[in-house]
């Protein structure tokens, strides 16, 4: 949430460009906080829809069986259906999340999952209470609405109840619904780990020999610009159409006042060499307590004192 705390009007810097994803830190017993990306409302909604479809399909299959075997008289069909739906739904969510480590089928498809806010395993208590609260939040008043409320007043209360509680996860900073707050759980994105090759691993080969940079040339940029450059160089390998690096290189050379010309074919080698030198320089600075977040690091000194 750093992007929120910064003064918004002060500047249009990289802080404004950072992706607006909510994250939640969990502290496992190992003592290193892990950052999880909070699942977006859309993903949760989608997962919920899929799960409801699955449970309703189960209900329909069971009802067809009951009607075909003539076990239930048609008079009691609606109430039997409502009870069976409840009896399928509650165990489905609770058992699925217990067996699949915080994922139901819908959550699996939408690549989200439930994690415990305690930094340890999800406990049965957490899973049960967050799923029981869902009954209170949505299904119990929803059933009243669908079954036809006995009075206008009752219908109004049920409607306000549902809509009010559906707003909770939208307003909440961590997209928690009431059940999540009570059970101390978060719904997060499934983490995906992709390892790109290290750009600074080897010395780039250029036809006319190595490039050298002086400290004053490396003073211009900060970590943010470095990582943008890394992204550009990485995506060059992934993308179908190669990115034209010449204007980027020219821009950098102009900024750092690099005196020598660079051949067109050597542009990538130059950028890699610059990336490597810049990273080594910034990491060294960081190690000695002078972390530079972006190219405004010089100005920051005045304000942060």
């Amino acid at each position, binding site marked *: 949430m750093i992007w929120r705390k910064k003064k918004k009007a002060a500047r249009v810097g990289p802080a404004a460009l950072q992706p607006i994803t909510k994250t939640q830190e969990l502290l496992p017993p190992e003592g*290193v906080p*892990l950052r999880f990306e909070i699942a977006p409302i859309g993903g949760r909604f989608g997962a919920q829809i899929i799960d409801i479809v699955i449970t309703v399909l189960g209900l329909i299959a069971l009802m067809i069986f009951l009607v075909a075997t003539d076990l239930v*008289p048609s008079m009691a069909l609606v109430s039997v259906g*409502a009870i069976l739906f409840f009896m399928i739904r509650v165990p489905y969510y609770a058992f699925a999340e*217990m067996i699949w480590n*915080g994922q139901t089928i819908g959550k699996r498809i939408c690549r989200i999952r439930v994690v415990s806010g305690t930094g340890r*395993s999800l406990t049965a208590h957490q899973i049960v209470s967050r799923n029981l609260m869902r009954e209170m939040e949505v299904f119990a008043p929803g059933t009243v609405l669908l079954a036809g409320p006995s009075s206008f007043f009752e219908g109004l209360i049920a409607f306000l109840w549902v809509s009010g509680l559906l707003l909770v996860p939208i307003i909440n900073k961590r997209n928690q619904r009431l059940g999540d707050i009570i059970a101390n759980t978060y719904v997060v994105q499934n983490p995906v780990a992709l390892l790109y090759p290290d750009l*600074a*691993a080897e010395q780039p080969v250029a036809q006319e020999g190595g490039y050298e940079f002086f400290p004053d040339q490396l003073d211009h940029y900060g970590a943010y610009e470095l990582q943008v450059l890394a992204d550009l160089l990485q995506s060059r390998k992934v993308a179908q159409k190669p990115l034209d690096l010449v204007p980027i290189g020219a821009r950098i050379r102009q900024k750092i006042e690099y005196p020598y010309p660079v051949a067109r074919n050597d542009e990538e080698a130059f950028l890699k060499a610059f990336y490597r030198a810049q990273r080594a320089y910034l990491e060294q600075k960081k190690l000695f307590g002078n972390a530079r977040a972006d190219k405004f690091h010089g100005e920051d000194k005045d304000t942060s004192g």
Partner: protein
Amino acid sequence: MSEPATMIRSARFRREREADWVRLDTILKQTERGGVRSLSFEDARDLSQLYRQSVASLSVAREISLDKALQEYLEALCCRAYLAVYAPQESVRGTFKRFITRSGPAAMRQSGGAILLAFVSMMIGAVVGYLLFFDDPMWYNTFIPGGMQGGRGISSSREELLDVIYGSGDEDLGGLGAFASFLFSHNTRIAIFAFALGVAACVPSFLLCAYQGLILGAFFALHVDRGIGLDLFGWLSIHGVTELAAIIIATAGGFRLGLAVLFPGNLTRRAALREHGRDAAKVAIMAALMLVVAAILEGFGRQLIVDRDTRIIIGWGVGLLWLAYFMLAGRSMDKRR
């Protein structure tokens, strides 16, 4: 390690550890597909060790490395490993067994005060309802809306009332139908809302529970007025002991939540709610189980058993069993809590 001297520090750091991360990654892929049980002995052994190593690497990388790709990879890898290592360790069956034998009854004992409070509020309602009926029978119609009276109004004669009590009643619904319509009935809704609304400082729960008592009192008074109080007592006993107890217990669960909001003690309200919520959820599940039992008794027992004394014995016998279960089950484990 071709040329470690010329490599920059963070690149060297990465090169030295990358093989371990890749190995952890493959173990994790296997775990995510088939669970921890599908791992071989070596993989399972290495999983936790590699997890701790990677977490340590992450901690270092955050400090020394500006390689964004590396940081993102390690963050995600550690998160995945954390999820694999700290997966729920309880089986579904074990959890259920523990609830039934230990934690459920223990939560009931912990909530004794709240249960007493709920019982008192229902009794207040019952006494008031009973007295008001004799004051003016028209109160009956005020307390019990027409739809719920089921043909038993203030104008019903003694014979009509007896017919409902000993007659076969909703025969056309059949056992399962009666079972379901019972669960879907008024009382279950009262129980659900008495629990859920308890968060609002106990007041709605108290009102609902007292209202339920009011209905009970007026209903009872009607039958006493016709001189068949004991017959109604038997009719109500067979399922009512369990059912009314379930409503009281659900209300008690609501009270636990409300009390946490009203008197959080040294905790914040949120923490107190969480703390009391542990017991309240268990109490609510217990109430749900009791409602299911009451539905079975209502759906099948009431039609099969028409003798008054047998009804009383069965109803209160089941009530005693509940009491014994809540008081005695899992007692030896209480000290460990």
